[in-house]
């Protein structure tokens, strides 16, 4: 019996051990999945050119630095476009030298009201000249000349604070005009060769000569200076004449970018309504009133219908206290009365110490800003339809989604300044992760309209701030 069993059991052992080994081999590998190959569809990403303002340029935390530029929406997009060819992205940007750039904001924490506090640092600023405008509205203002990036137009032609009203202004980027108040843009200056009088539109014409694809993101540049000065700066007032010019010029810009609708590209719109930006939205009457007693009346300085600046209670809608005002709001301040006596009153809670005009964008001013952005956006939507271009911002409104909170792979992004990981510390430009979320919305539309297949970014892999860590 035993002699029978032995050969059998060794055979069984052989079978069993080989079965075990093959099982382990099988279990050792994961079931395969093949990702779809990236494809350009009807688009051609081989030479991509970006046209616009702060967002595409990579402006973040109130500044433009070598570190923030590498996370610009334009650069992030191109990095994904490059997956189609399989070659690394060769997208050229007007990069600052490593570790340098403009001044930018640093976080200082949150006050008792949950208001984000920031301070500005000029640690990495390298300027080769400056002009101080002592009488600028909203106080002394310095314009710096930064180091020129290159003598060739880069693919990223986005210029922070570019105004549509000025795209045909000759000399906007010529150093000789540094002292021309409100008519000089230092970011265009460092994009162009020295002493170049070309307008932005001409630069775009030249820069898009061989382009196969464009990205256009404009709209805030015209209104940002006005918003940031609480509507005090009349030179940047988006009045009806200016708004009409914005409408005309945005068409000129898109026609150049898109070669009159013949070149594929993507358009991204500025936030509309503009109060989706935390810069304004965090200072709405509902939020501000919640910081004090319900019985407290909030007073602001604002022009009345006749244009005379008066002190009045904060309006129920569309008066927005800016971050500078919120940082001081409700704090006891020593105020000198007309009769020379001094009293301590809380900022914004007394007729004697209202929110200063520079700290509030009142409903009239807000109406103008919103009208400007709406006009630009409507014109772009009309043209996108005409040229059959993908557009982000009308049907898909990322700012609105963020306003209501979104989750990306389980990570929640909100409009909360300093915490929500979407908006940077200046409360209107985006963090690298915010840029990736915006770029993803653009890529989705590109994929849909052109039948392309470009992989999206994983925003959670990007840093939460563009500041060098």
């Amino acid at each position, binding site marked *: 019996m035993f002699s029978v069993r032995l050969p059998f059991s060794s055979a069984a052992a052989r079978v069993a051990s080989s079965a075990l080994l093959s099982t382990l081999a099988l*279990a050792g590998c994961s079931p*395969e999945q093949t990702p779809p190959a990236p494809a350009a569809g009807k688009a051609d990403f081989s030479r991509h050119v970006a046209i616009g303002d702060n967002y595409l340029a990579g402006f973040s935390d109130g500044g433009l630095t070598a570190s923030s530029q590498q996370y610009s929406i334009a650069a992030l997009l191109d990095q994904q476009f490059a997956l189609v060819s399989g070659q690394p992205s060769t997208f050229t940007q007007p990069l600052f030298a490593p570790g340098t750039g403009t001044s930018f904001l640093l976080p200082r924490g949150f006050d008792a009201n949950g208001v984000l506090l920031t301070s500005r640092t000029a640690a990495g600023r390298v300027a080769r000249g400056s002009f101080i405008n002592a009488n600028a509205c909203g106080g002394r203002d310095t314009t710096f000349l930064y180091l020129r990036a290159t003598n060739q137009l880069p693919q990223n032609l986005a210029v922070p604070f570019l105004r549509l009203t000025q795209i045909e202004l000759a000399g906007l980027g010529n150093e000789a005009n540094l002292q021309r108040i409100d008519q000089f843009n230092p970011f265009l200056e460092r994009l162009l060769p020295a002493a170049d009088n070309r307008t932005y539109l001409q630069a775009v014409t030249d820069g898009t000569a061989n382009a196969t694809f464009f990205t256009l993101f404009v709209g805030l540049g015209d209104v940002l200076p006005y918003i940031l000065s609480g509507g005090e700066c009349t030179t940047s007032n988006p009045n009806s004449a200016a708004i009409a010019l914005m409408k005309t010029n945005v068409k000129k810009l898109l026609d150049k970018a898109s070669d009159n609708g013949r070149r594929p590209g993507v358009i991204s719109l500025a936030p509309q309504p503009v109060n989706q930006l935390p810069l304004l939205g965090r200072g709405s009457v509902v939020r501000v009133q919640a910081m004090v007693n319900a019985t407290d009346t909030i007073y602001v300085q604002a022009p009345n219908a006749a244009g005379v600046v008066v002190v009045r209670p904060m309006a129920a809608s569309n008066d927005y206290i800016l971050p500078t005002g919120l940082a001081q709001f409700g704090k006891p301040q020593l105020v000198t009365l007309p009769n020379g006596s001094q009293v301590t009153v809380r900022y914004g809670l007394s007729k004697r110490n209202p929110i200063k005009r520079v700290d509030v964008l009142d409903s009239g001013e807000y109406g103008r800003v919103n009208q400007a952005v709406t006009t630009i956006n409507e014109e772009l939507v009309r043209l996108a339809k005409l040229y059959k271009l993908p557009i982000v911002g009308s049907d898909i409104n990322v700012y609105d989604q963020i306003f209501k909170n979104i*989750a990306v792979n389980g990570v929640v992004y909100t409009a909360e300044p300093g915490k929500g990981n979407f908006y940077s510390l200046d409360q209107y430009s985006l963090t690298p992760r915010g840029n990736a979320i915006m770029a993803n919305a653009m890529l989705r539309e590109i994929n849909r309209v052109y039948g392309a297949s470009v992989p999206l970014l994983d925003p*959670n892999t990007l840093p939460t701030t563009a500041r060098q860590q």
Partner: protein
Amino acid sequence: MTLRYLSLGLLLVSFSAGAGGFQAGPQSARTLGMGGASVAYIRDLASIYYNPGALAQMDSSTRISLGGLANVRRTSFLGTDSRHLADTEFQPLPGGYFYAAKPLTDKISVGLSVNTPFGYDTRWPDSWEGRNVVQQARMNTLFVQPTAAYKINENFSVGAGLVYAVGRMSQQFALSQYDDRNVTVRYAGSGSGFGFNAGLYGKTAETLSFGISYRSPVTLNVKNGETTAANIPAADAGRYPTSARLRTEVNLPGALSVGMANQVSKKLLIAFDFTLTAWSRFDSLSYSIGEAPAMATQTVGRRYEDAMAFRVGGEYAHSRLLTLRAGVSYDETPIRDEFITPELPDGNKLGGSLGLSAHLSESLSVDAAYQFEAAALRTSRVVQANEDVSNVGGTYRTHVHTVSLGLSYSF
């Protein structure tokens, strides 16, 4: 602990006790070889667990059966948006079984079943796309079931057992809202609970037998679990305490099974099982974190569906020394499309199994089996606007390998 803590999606993932389909394979080498068809299959002591009624129909000897099980799930993930690939790590889930049966009288038999019917061990790479949803999720259970059966007559018998179950589970995920990749939260806890098991076994002819069994749900009460957070930035230390108490319940489903076995020829037996697992009882999961009375509770919807399983197995008596087995199974998943998560991305599984018993002597045999199951491709869709759902969009492809090796001995 405030509600703020909860609103951050922290608890929206969970012990995926909820994620269904985490049965760790048929609970013996013989049953595994039969593809899990076991309700009317009397030649295996695992009947004590699968149909206590069958216990009284076994022959008059005292028997024991014991062995080890290993369950390996391999899942690959392809991100819908990013097209990034990720694979779960090779992580066998160890299990085992011990069954003993002894007839006390002609009519009454008693038995003991100790096995590990539920469990999973899912480990994704720490830096994968869904790290904020889950990095590691693990559960082990041990079921102890003393059982008694009564033979009503030559053809029919009934049996019942009391189930005492213990379980241990843990889950870890990253908080990717921070730049530091090492910020993680971990839940861990263990609990126990009771249930019962009852079954009926009958023979309608010499060659045809059938069984019906019902297994009650078991709820493991996790009273002293712990949630720990590591490397939280100082500014947010208040939001994520380094350590807090965790309470939850882990619901293990009940099941109703019917089966039949037919001795087709002298050498060949075919068994068939149909099982309905009552997952739908579990509509949601609740978690409480912190110290009473300030304990915050969160309820997460799961909405499982009842799931059916069909299993067919054949046993062929090759010789006095060798018995061969083969089986086919189809296991429905209880998880609806909208609740597919990376904790345990289950799918409808089609399986095939092979097994053998080598009879070393009249009383001793070595049993071995292997089962391979392929789960249908599952796709999780994520709507960004739905901030309360912590999930990652992609497709999952899962293969499950189960091996078992054991001994059966009769006195």
